[in-house]
């Protein structure tokens, strides 16, 4: 048999049939739905169809979840009620607002042990790539596809090409998975990995915690890849074991035996290979309106007149929207507020990293810290991180997507600048006219303290970066 990649193995074990034209019909092991699935349930209803596998379908309130008290606006309350109603009508387990398991879909899947190596996971959300950190085939789908999965527990998909991004060496202190991701996206472009499934490998990837691996896989979509994956290893198994929905006893042993066969064979071929040296990576911030607009914090705002001819107009438009001028040092950009949250960077390790910088210091600008789930919230409170954030002057709020997508009413006002641990610096993403700079939790904490974008590394002297 020819050598196989992780992608080949996952694909083969889920393919039910392959049509002559190359489209595969794949079995879906887990289907996660959130408030945005209302279009899909409406489609199902229009056909008079039922959910094929309610036991493999899980709902969660996150995109519209209020982070302070109850939903303020009636349309927000309606979105939440619609999901809860649809879940109940179809017999689907739903982690509602009052459920201690509630949180952002890509945080709670792994937390509850719904996300396992070797599974195919779909969700009507592009950051579903997060779950690939466990060695799962996980990808975001649109409403028509969500309706299809609800009705059939399968999905039609053409196999993407395999791509390997290898990070050699070790990350320096104060540099993390967010920086690794922004580094490759800046290098290859926001559409650089389009049509590919990425497998991340190399010493620096192996050294990442599961939280860090999730951050790295989460951002795959910002570089155009629908899939991001890391082969499961001992760290993966240790992270999964004992979680509420994870297998137990004999089933666990069987599972680990299967999962151990998943890593790409040593001589497997990839359609594309990229190698980056992790020890070269500095803390990165974005300056523009696409995640590819990312540079080390030690750099300056790019000059459109020196950009490649094709890029000049876009750079100019981005600087105009962001209110920046060419040549300005990135570390001199003043921010109005900060946000720590989202499926990219609101897991416990992210909060620890931010707290390590903030401990005993005061923030100069206001900000929100929204944990990725109620369990992360409880854990952070048990560790006293909430007090560090509040003593620094930041607001400690409930779990949900919050200011990542500004659907629940948490928005950045027009023209205001936010240092944010989220994943998209698109125009208007955090509210109409909002200016977003993406960076790691430690870097956001540093910006909060100084009031401008700041290299966090000197601020870590004598502290552990968690």
């Amino acid at each position: 048999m020819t050598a196989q990649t992780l992608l080949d193995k996952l694909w083969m074990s889920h393919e039910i049939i392959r049509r002559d034209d190359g489209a595969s019909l794949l079995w879906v092991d887990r289907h996660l739905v959130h408030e945005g699935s209302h279009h899909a349930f409406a489609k199902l209803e229009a056909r008079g169809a039922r959910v094929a596998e309610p036991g493999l379908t899980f709902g969660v309130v996150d995109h519209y979840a209020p982070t302070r008290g109850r939903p303020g606006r009636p349309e927000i309350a309606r979105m939440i009620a619609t999901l809860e109603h649809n879940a109940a009508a179809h017999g689907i387990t739903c982690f509602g607002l009052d459920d201690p398991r509630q949180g952002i879909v890509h945080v709670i899947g792994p937390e509850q042990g719904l996300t396992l190596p070797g599974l195919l996971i779909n969700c009507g959300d592009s950051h579903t790539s997060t779950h690939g950190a466990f060695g799962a085939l996980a990808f975001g789908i649109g409403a028509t596809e969500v309706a299809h999965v609800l009705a059939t527990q399968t999905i039609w998909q053409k196999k993407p090409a395999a791509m390997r991004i290898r990070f050699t060496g070790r990350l320096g202190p104060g540099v993390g998975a967010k920086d690794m991701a922004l580094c490759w996206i800046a290098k290859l472009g926001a559409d650089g990995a389009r049509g590919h499934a990425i497998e991340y490998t190399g010493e620096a990837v192996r050294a990442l915690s599961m939280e860090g691996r999730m951050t790295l896989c989460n951002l795959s979509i910002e570089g155009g890849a629908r899939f991001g994956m890391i082969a499961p290893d001992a760290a993966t198994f240790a992270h999964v074991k004992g979680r509420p929905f994870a297998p137990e006893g004999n089933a666990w042993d069987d599972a680990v035996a299967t999962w151990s066969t998943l890593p790409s064979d040593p001589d497997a071929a990839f359609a594309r290979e990229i190698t980056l040296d992790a020890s070269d990576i500095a803390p990165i911030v974005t300056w523009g309106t696409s995640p590819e607009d990312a540079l080390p914090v030690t750099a300056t705002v790019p000059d459109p007149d020196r950009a490649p001819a094709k890029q000049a107009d876009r750079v100019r438009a981005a600087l105009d929207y962001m209110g920046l001028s060419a040549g300005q040092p990135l570390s001199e950009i003043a921010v109005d507020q900060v946000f720590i949250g989202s499926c990219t960077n609101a897991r416990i390790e992210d909060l620890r990293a931010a707290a390590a910088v903030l401990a005993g210091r005061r923030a100069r600008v206001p900000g929100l810290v929204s944990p990725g789930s109620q369990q992360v919230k409880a854990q952070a409170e048990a560790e006293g991180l909430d007090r560090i954030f509040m003593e620094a002057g930041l607001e400690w709020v409930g779990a949900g997507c919050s200011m990542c997508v500004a659907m629940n009413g948490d928005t950045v006002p027009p023209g205001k600048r936010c240092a944010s641990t989220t994943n998209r610096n698109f125009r208007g993403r955090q509210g109409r006219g909002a200016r977003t700079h993406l960076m790691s939790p430690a870097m956001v904490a540093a910006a909060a303290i100084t009031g401008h974008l700041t290299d966090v590394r000197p601020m870590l002297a004598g502290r552990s970066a968690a």
Partner: protein
Amino acid sequence: MSGWTRHEGKAVALDRESIDTDQLIPARFMSTPRSEGYGPFLLHDLRFDAEGTPVETFPLNRVSESSVLITRRNFGSGSSREAAVYALVDFGIRAVLAPSFGDIFASNAVNNGLLPAQVDAGVVDALIADLPETGASARIDLADGTARIGDRSITFEIDPIWRKKLINGWDDIDLTHRHADAIAADRVNRARRSPWAFPSGEGHQTTA
């Protein structure tokens, strides 16, 4: 969804790179039921100023009956929100010609009868340079992958699976139901081969 093979309409240029899904439809409109129509939300914050007045110079405001968009790389990047496609379709757009598209956007487009036609960047440059502000006539031929924009003839790429789907107006759920036996057999096999892949009963209770 009904299929189509030929479209005649009006082309307009949107001379920007990376028009992402958050621009195609800002998140605040997404709680609207589809039956109300998503056309007014299309590119809302570019088409309308903060007071809600149409920006006169914006191409879609100049040429309101446009049905073919010609634009630059990485169109529809970002979120999986199918609402971005609903906004285009409800506005009357039938085809978008660009050098590259967000993957999820492109499959959503095809699922709603909207053609994401991939065209060489150089050809897009020429088309945009040629297009008058008032737009130009457009003819798209799906079957042979050609288009005529003004007096320029071009070819475009589309995955053959998608071409077939657009032409036939296929509904995937109907197609899949034809494989119901294979799916059922696969499930039985799977439960036997990898019982671990099914969630354990442990945490599996519905929220009170």
